[in-house]
């Protein structure tokens, strides 16, 4: 559908018409001007206006047609759509040519078109959010028609395995139906996130304090890019590191002190995720600490506080909204992190608080549901969208709170670069 012959013909003819419009309009404008009439705009601007008048409506019409075909399933023959668009292009060309006259403001007309095109580009980001929302909510609603919302939120058993048999019409044979209780998944997700935050917040915050308050310029010049490298490592690489290096190490340590640890323990992905989040927390906290006005430090030192007390009792409390905001952003990243847990955490939903046992997370189950050989409308596949919806809502809330916090900080200290 996307690249086929009518499409190529359309592009080719339109290109030809456009080039034609450009040169004829410019020629005409040059002639008018040569005859001594003062014109509002330059010949090139008339030429570009003619091009826009030719191509713009035609592209709009064909896009609209294609969209209607896809969206409403209306059966418009491709050929007639093509023809209509090209006729429109020809009309546009004629209109564009007649408008090449002295009292027409071609420059302003182009300006208006450009403004609309730019505004159109700006709506893409809104459409993206809408797209995410629609795709997730739509499928999640389908899922909640099969399984009750209440059961999904409060159930403690996640056993989608039987839904395959149900879908195949052999549901009666399977003992019991599929169960979609998401509590163990969310418990696992929050548990692993908590481990990550326990690693990332102290290390990230203290690093930021060191870089902001103590570090000589040279150390700062090395440390900042180093932390950025930590942020730039792909998550799949962290996942491999967690699964191959950290998890066996934890198992060995646990063995040596007489504990029994699973190779898919929750500690390994938690710690590695924490390492991943350090730079998010440290860089934003560093910015915030730098933004705390120096007068506050001077006042504190003048009262006889030591440097440590100044930092602990004056700088950090002043920067607290920013630090909390950074931690919340880090947390939302940890909640939605996928590859590390897919590779290093377990597959089995497990309601436990022992970090050495295996547990699974929301994102792991989403990936599992999406990579199975199931029909798209089976309950397990749809459950991924339900899980995604909850994930979306939770991270959205965290992000919003984070934005509000940082705005409060910005307003309090009148900082503009945060």
């Amino acid at each position, binding site marked *: 559908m996307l690249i086929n012959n009518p499409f190529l013909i359309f592009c080719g003819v339109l290109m030809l018409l456009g080039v034609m419009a450009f040169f004829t309009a410019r020629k005409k404008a040059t002639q008018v001007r040569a005859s001594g009439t003062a014109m509002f705009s330059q010949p090139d601007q008339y030429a570009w206006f003619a091009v826009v008048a030719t191509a713009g409506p035609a592209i709009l019409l064909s896009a609209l047609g294609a969209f209607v075909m896809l969206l409403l399933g209306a059966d418009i023959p491709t050929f007639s759509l093509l023809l209509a668009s090209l006729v429109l292009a020809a009309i546009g060309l004629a209109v564009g040519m007649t408008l090449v006259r002295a009292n027409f403001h071609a420059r302003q007309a182009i300006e208006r078109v450009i*403004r609309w095109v730019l505004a159109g580009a700006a709506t893409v*980001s809104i459409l993206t959010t809408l797209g995410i929302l629609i795709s997730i909510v739509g499928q999640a609603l389908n899922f909640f028609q099969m399984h009750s919302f209440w059961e999904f939120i409060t159930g403690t058993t996640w056993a989608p395995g039987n839904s395959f048999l149900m879908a195949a019409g052999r549901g009666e044979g399977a003992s019991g139906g599929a169960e979609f209780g998401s509590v163990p998944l969310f418990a696992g997700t929050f548990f692993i996130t908590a481990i990550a935050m326990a690693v990332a917040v102290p290390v990230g915050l*203290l690093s930021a304090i060191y870089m902001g308050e103590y570090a000589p310029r040279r150390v700062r010049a090395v440390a900042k890019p180093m932390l*950025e490298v930590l942020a730039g490592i792909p998550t*799949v690489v962290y996942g491999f590191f967690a699964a191959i290096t950290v998890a066996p190490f934890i198992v060995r340590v646990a063995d040596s002190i007489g504990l029994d640890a699973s190779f898919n323990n929750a500690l390994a992905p938690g710690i590695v995720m924490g390492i991943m989040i350090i730079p998010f927390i*440290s860089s934003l906290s560093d910015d915030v600490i730098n933004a705390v006005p120096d007068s506050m430090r001077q006042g504190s030192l003048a009262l006889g506080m030591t440097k*440590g007390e100044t930092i602990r009792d004056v700088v950090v409390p002043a920067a607290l909204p920013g630090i909390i905001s950074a931690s919340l952003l880090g947390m939302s990243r940890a909640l*939605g992190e996928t590859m590390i847990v897919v590779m290093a955490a377990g597959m089995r939903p497990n309601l436990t608080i022992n970090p050495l046992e295996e547990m699974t997370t929301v994102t792991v189950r989403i990936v599992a549901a999406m990579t199975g050989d199931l029909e798209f409308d089976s309950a397990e596949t749809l459950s991924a969208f339900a899980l995604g919806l909850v994930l979306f809502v939770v*991270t*959205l809330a965290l992000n919003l709170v984070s934005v509000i916090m940082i705005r409060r900080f910005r307003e309090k200290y009148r900082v503009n670069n945060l």
Partner: protein
Amino acid sequence: MSDSFEKISQQLERRHRKSARLKYMSMGALALAASFLLIFFADMLNKGLPAFQQAMVNIEVNYSEEASRSGRAAIDRDLSDIVSRSVVRVIPLDMRNDPSLLGTTEQRWVLASGEVDQYLKGNLVRLDDEDKEIIDRLVESGKVEMQFNTGFFSRGDSKMPELAGIMSAVVGTVMTMIVTLAIAFPIGVMTAVYLEEFAADNRLTQLIEININNLAAIPSILFGLLGLAIFINFFGVPRSTPLVGGMTLALMTLPVIIISTRTALRSVPDSIRHAAFGVGCSRWQVVRDHVLPLAMPGIMTGSIIGLAQAMGETAPLIIVGMVAFIPDVTASFTDAATVMPAQVFTWANEPDRAFVEKTAGGIIVLLAVLISLNASAVMLRKKFERRW
């Protein structure tokens, strides 16, 4: 009097010790982060560097009548477990393509099997003692040696570890990134230009702004769900292809490009705009001829960083099916393809021990690309950065 003086100086000493403790603790935190990084890189290099070496065997290939039916007959029977199966398999094919080979013999270096490779690298293998002895003898006589693994860079994926290479993933990555940039760069720059230079500060622009900041923080896997539901199921874009992967990643990269472009545009001083308006430029002319060229280094830097981020992303690509077994280099944007991080993921899931070093080797290649991209972004910024 002197008593309280003493007390206070003791107290002061305590306070200063406490103050120093905070300094060492914070220094320790940074050192801890640095040591994480060091351990990580040391571990990856340690695991991955062997992947760039590959055991090769020098064997005599005997193009006999029998060998045209079964490749095994062409080589010494003792060596049949030592030479890679892929070599044996192509011998009858070679003979069919070139009948003049019949009856000749040839001495050449061929791939050793994955097991031999692992044995020579000192890993645990399933070879029996007899085979090990043969290998040791061959090593002594110089018939088996480690050579630079060119195949790792020139071949696609394979189920045989000695054959697996990263080429198809590299090509897939390049194609996916082309799609991503082609979509995200123009739309991102246009959005930023609109918000910074054209739009009035009204409800709609504020909504767009909040929305962009929020998009930047949405978990990447949700973009995958969007790609699956909208691009694949609704618009019918073929699954597993660079096209759908690139489109999905483009939406993810968009906020990064928008935010960095806006910063770059904002850093261009207003005096430039005033001067241009003053000589009669229209708004678009100001932007096109003056503001954008001055902001370009910043925009490029941001786009490269966004590109590097997209290049390392795996989760949304799993959802749109780009984690696939791709032995051949992808030829078109609508063929199934894989990308480097997805290849790393695929290899990490292989049960064969030999794939661990392939995974780490792939990671080293990926990291090298990403670090050089980021370094070039930093250099670009250093070189063209202007303080107004």
